[in-house]
């Protein structure tokens, strides 16, 4: 998932190269902005202003437009996230089945607020709209894994699966 490398600089050029290669492969035109940003976020883990400027320049778009798109969609983030992103479903079914207790248990367990990231950058905690997995409510998603029928008791065990 997220590439949150700590080596500051020396390896980012490799990441930029990969992004360049991806952009070169995309069919030309305005349409490619979102796929490119999705790729960039996958590579960098988040979309700091520098990356947005880089993309804007490469695609010959005003930075303001790139920024507008980044801030519009839930998938994009401008803050560095933890190695693993925990998404708690906010949907009605999950809410009815106790999503709130899950949020509380997660906050307590990780000692962070909703929207926060742990100090060791292991986890970030966010919410999301219905995943469409309501049969398993309440549902949380860690990176791309869906965990269903979560109870506060199960939280510690689930988190332990992620280093």
């Amino acid at each position, binding site marked *: 998932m997220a590439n949150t490398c700590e080596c500051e600089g020396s390896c980012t050029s490799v990441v930029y190269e990969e992004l360049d290669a991806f952009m070169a492969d995309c069919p030309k035109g*305005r349409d490619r902005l979102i796929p490119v940003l999705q790729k960039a976020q996958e590579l960098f883990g988040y979309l700091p202003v520098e990356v947005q400027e880089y993309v804007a320049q490469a695609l010959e778009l005003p930075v303001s437009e790139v920024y507008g798109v980044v801030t519009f969609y839930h998938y994009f983030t401008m803050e560095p996230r933890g190695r693993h992103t925990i998404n708690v479903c906010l949907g009605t079914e999950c*809410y009815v089945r106790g999503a709130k207790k899950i949020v509380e248990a997660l906050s307590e367990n990780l000692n962070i607020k909703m929207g926060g990231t742990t100090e060791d950058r292991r986890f970030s905690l966010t919410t999301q*709209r219905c995943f469409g997995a309501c*049969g*398993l409510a309440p549902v949380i998603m860690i990176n791309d894994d869906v965990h269903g029928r979560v109870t506060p008791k199960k939280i510690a065990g689930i988190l332990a699966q992620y280093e």
Partner: protein
Amino acid sequence: MAKPRAYVMVSVDADTVVIGAREVKTRLAAEIGGCGLGGEVRVLETGSFGPSDAGVVAAVLPDGVVYGNLTPERIPQLVEEHFVKGRPVKDWLLPGEHFLPDPENSDPRGQQYFGRIVLDNCGRIDPESIEEYIANDGYFALGKALAEMTPEALVEEVKASGLRGRGGAGFPTGLKWSFCASEQADIKYVICNADEGEPGTFKDRLIMEGDPHKVIEGMALCGYALGASQGYVYIRGEYKLSIERIRHAIEAARENGLLGKDIMGSGFDFDIAVKIGAGAYVCGEETALIESMEGKRGLPRVKPPFPAKAGFRGKPTNVNNVETLANIPFIIRNGAAQFHRIGDPGTPGTKVYTVLGHINRAGLIEVPTSVTLRDVLEDYAGGMRAGTFKMAQLGGTAGDLLDASMLDVPLNYDSLAKNGHSLGSGAILFMNETVKVCDFLHACMKFFAHESCGNCNPCRNGMEALLELTERLKQGAGYPGDIALMEELVMGMQSIAFCPLGQSPAAPVLSAVRYFRDEMLTGIDADAVRPRPEHTMRHLMKLAS
């Protein structure tokens, strides 16, 4: 190899993968092989065929029994008992009747034949095998249309079928197609709306996971009818398995000459690409979806011009829901007349729902449009699991709340409209008396407040005000007049919000007030004094200027 005597269909969809469906399948195949039955019993992966709260589910055909809550540990005993000794393991059978996809299957109430139109293959074939789709009449409709029908005749056939859009608004599909078909342009686009964002709705996901080729065939037929050469499936990013299976299906169709240039030698060119959403509820609205596909913020456009005139990249574009498109092959294969005979004459056909809540059997169902809410509850959902029926929300968070007085209204656009309601997106949430109306409304408002894009003031501030209002009512600390204020707010938002998202809270709020005013009044504290400033529409307008 001899023809197998039995098939074990393991439902592998995004929900069951999480709880180990693939492990169960692997173990099943291994155990069956270990008993030397590999040639007789085939283990297959299918999409979901209904139950969504029964763990890993597998059906044995032709026996027609369904096992639930399977784990790899249970498999050796299951294989030994069922396949070697030939007696089903009663304890693990899923109780109740099942809607096992079977073309001979009649309505479980035994009243009316309908079979399944959209889900006929779900749970019966391997969604990753184009051969199995073809063996079940797949791509027959496309072949028939290309060989025998003109594009105009195809549009007429869909018109005659009376099919109405399943994405929420219920717009007649044939009519929509005819707008786009009559446009002259060098290129036209067909878009399949698979952004399914309405909470509680996941029927489109299960259709794509269970029978992706049906969606592809529907799109190709649409492309032929409209003279479009390029299709897109816009899938929300979280639907990983749908994305995978649709992509796989597109490739398989291309390899078999069912997509690409000169399809089946007819001279018709059509190809499909997948676009992945980046997460915003409003992108499900068709013009917002087009904006998003163009790499912009997903803000709805001002209509007109409608997409049929100027849609994606300014070209004529037709947007249909996944389920709508999945109906097309049946209509072309069997003719409009046969389709029209099913369900309610005003909204012929079937409707796919995900049913959830305090019921015995949650999951995916497909029912004729003539059944009522009570039929769904009693016959398909197995009745209430606990408590008694208090209310149902029809069509996700933006849908209406109904009370027991609406149980006998048939679930279709016309019958519901007569009662001042709409059908919505295909989710039904049944609730018993433990759910408080104000709590529930608050949960709905939370969702809208989260999804408001902030572009227009009535929606941005209105949602916050509604959140505050429902929070107060929930805690029994509402100010006298709060209910009227809430009504004023949602109606105001309905008329002046820029996009349909801002209009959405009106349905749940107004229907809640209509049926549960007395209960909501208990959230009001008669002695509470309202502090200034008030959240009135006038106040909002002032903020806006």
